């Protein structure tokens, strides 16, 4: 087993990896940008070294700086988390050349699956179904128009190097295509340094179902069941669950086998995810492969009992995976909500700022993977995700009810978050009955942006009492439910003395 690992990431995922390392008795090195000095991942690592600078390019994307720190301080391996350098083949190669173990697949697998068009071709060659569309990056507006005509509107434009909804556009008719293509291309360039865009058939009411796989260096490949991630806004997942209500054992086996085929097709090593779209006729199509840990991996952990980060580390150490049929039977049901700093009413735009008050939820069935502390700042420089709340229940209903309870308990002030919006989704009849699709939020827009339900009189009174007592700390109880006002003052006096 490794003695020391450098974690080339920040936020909740860095802290989450540190925790798994501690549980294995492995020392950890954190790296940090200037504005992350006060972030939890820096405090909870055994060692921490500054990267110097603030932008992603100067810090968490600067592979050379990170490799140098790893070598200087005796790390044997690097865990890239997700995002940043996690799917950067050059970094994986540089790390290996520097004598470090990259905790992930080979640079060749990353490259192969990193190009969405190349990945599609490979899948087709290996009999994994793909969505109809152009196989390669579009060369011109004319080609895009012709291709769209061939497969039929609506179509989806997607970044070749992309993921996470960046550089993605839905186009309903030929008139919209030229400007959508330009804007997607610009976004792709800025996010991935590659402006290539491809086109594909847009599926109606599709579900996003993905399979978690593990592959070791002894040739074993297993799947750990699926996650349904259909609830998305701006093409980004916000609620994920495992298992999916729509899969039966037969379909799960069929998709699981396809996932293993996909992994084998690129000689995959370590943890990876095969994303599929499932249409209403229960046809599934390969979407892409994420050659890294997913944001939503905790729901799989809760229903399989595995620690996926520990599995990653063991595989990277050369150990063989010793799992059998974990992909078929699950322990209850798990749901994850991503808590984002964003302004839901304003098209989910990021809402940066300082967290002035934070008291997370806890209690039965609740796990939190958070990357922030009270006083931390959600900046513009990185992803605006604050925390992941994960609920487990013996069935889906219990998991969802526990999640709603936890979201209502969660207290965070200073910035706008999507917590109220998440609660409205979870309470929506269509969500409760499991009628999900990637267009869920658009379909149910009118009910999801409804007004709050707490008594307006109580809310009004809260504002008034704060207003009246802005300058002093008061504690007042009207006398109806209590013996006399006097006893209240006595009580306060007593409390002061006992402090």
């Amino acid at each position: 087993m490794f003695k020391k690992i450098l974690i080339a990431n920040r936020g909740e995922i860095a802290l989450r990896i540190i925790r798994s390392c501690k549980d294995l008795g492995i020392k950890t090195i954190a790296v940090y940008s200037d504005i992350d000095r006060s972030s939890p991942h820096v405090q909870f690592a055994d060692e921490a070294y500054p990267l110097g600078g603030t932008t992603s390019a100067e810090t968490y994307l600067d592979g050379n700086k990170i490799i140098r720190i790893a070598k200087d301080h005796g790390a044997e391996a690097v865990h890239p988390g997700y995002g940043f350098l996690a799917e950067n083949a050059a970094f994986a190669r540089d790390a290996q050349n520097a004598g470090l173990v990259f905790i992930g697949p080979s640079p060749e697998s990353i490259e192969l699956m990193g190009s969405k068009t190349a990945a599609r071709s490979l899948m087709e060659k290996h009999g994994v179904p793909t969505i109809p569309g152009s196989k390669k990056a579009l060369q011109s507006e004319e080609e895009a128009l012709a291709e769209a005509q061939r497969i039929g509107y609506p179509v989806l434009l997607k970044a070749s190097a992309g993921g996470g909804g960046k550089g993605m556009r839905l186009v309903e008719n030929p008139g919209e295509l030229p400007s959508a293509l330009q804007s997607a291309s610009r976004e792709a360039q800025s996010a991935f340094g590659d402006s290539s865009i491809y086109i594909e058939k847009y599926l109606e009411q599709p579900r996003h179902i993905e399979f978690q796989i593990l592959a070791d260096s002894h040739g074993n490949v297993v799947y750990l069941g699926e996650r349904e991630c259909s609830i998305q806004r701006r093409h980004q997942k916000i609620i994920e669950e495992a298992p999916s209500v729509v899969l039966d054992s037969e379909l799960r086996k069929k998709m699981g086998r396809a996932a293993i085929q996909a992994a084998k097709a690129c000689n995959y090593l370590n943890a990876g995810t095969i994303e599929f779209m499932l249409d209403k006729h229960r046809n599934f199509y390969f979407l892409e492969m994420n050659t890294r840990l997913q944001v939503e991996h905790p729901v799989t952990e809760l229903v399989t009992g595995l620690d996926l980060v520990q599995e990653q580390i063991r595989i990277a150490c050369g150990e063989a995976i010793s799992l059998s049929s974990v992909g078929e039977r699950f322990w209850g049901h798990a749901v994850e909500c991503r808590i984002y700093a964003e302004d839901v009413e304003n098209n989910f735009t990021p809402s940066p700022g300082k967290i002035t008050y934070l008291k997370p939820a806890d209690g039965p069935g609740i796990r939190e993977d958070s990357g922030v502390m009270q006083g931390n700042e959600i900046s513009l420089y990185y992803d605006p995700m604050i925390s992941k709340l994960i609920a487990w229940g013996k069935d889906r209903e219990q998991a969802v009810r526990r999640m709603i309870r936890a979201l209502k308990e969660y207290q965070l002030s200073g910035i706008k978050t999507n917590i109220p919006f998440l609660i409205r989704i979870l309470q929506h009849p269509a969500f409760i009955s499991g009628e999900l699709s990637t267009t869920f939020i658009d379909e149910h827009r009118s009910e999801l942006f409804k007004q709050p339900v707490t008594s307006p009189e109580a809310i009004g009174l809260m504002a008034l009492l704060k207003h009246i007592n802005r300058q002093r700390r008061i504690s007042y109880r009207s006398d109806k439910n209590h013996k006399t006002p006097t006893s209240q003052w006595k009580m306060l006096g007593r409390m002061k003395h006992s402090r």
Partner: protein
Amino acid sequence: MKYIVKIQDRKYTFDYSENDKKISNQNNEPLDYDWVELGNGCFSLILNGNSYICHVSEQNGGYQIMVDGEVVSATIEDEQSLTLNKFVKAHAKEPSEQVIKAPIPGLVTRIFVQAGDKLKKDASLLALEAMKMENLIKAPCECTVEKIFVKSGQTVQQNQPLIQLKKSG
């Protein structure tokens, strides 16, 4: 003293007595309440036996209240200021000019309009990139572009003026 609390589009009137701290609502019913600060802007309110834990913060002269996972904004006026405001409003005309400000800090990646353009509602004005996402800023109503304060490639702060529009008609 009477206070008017505005929550979204609705108004609630409360009467507060400085002497005995009693508060009654708009139906002149005295409210049975118990209010304790738990610390850091976090409060406990028990109103007619119903218990609420809330976080109240000041925001743009009003208040933001977080309760039961919901966030609500409220503004408060007392009798005197309200009377004054009504007078001022009655003598002012509605402004036909509007300055579009940056809703978030970010980078202006593209400007789609120029001064003098006549626009329909929801026409794209400019693209603002923040946290790696491109955000389209759109026209709030039918209007004419009066002034553009920023350039493509420029970094802007939150609330920095971007474009001045004049309402049509």
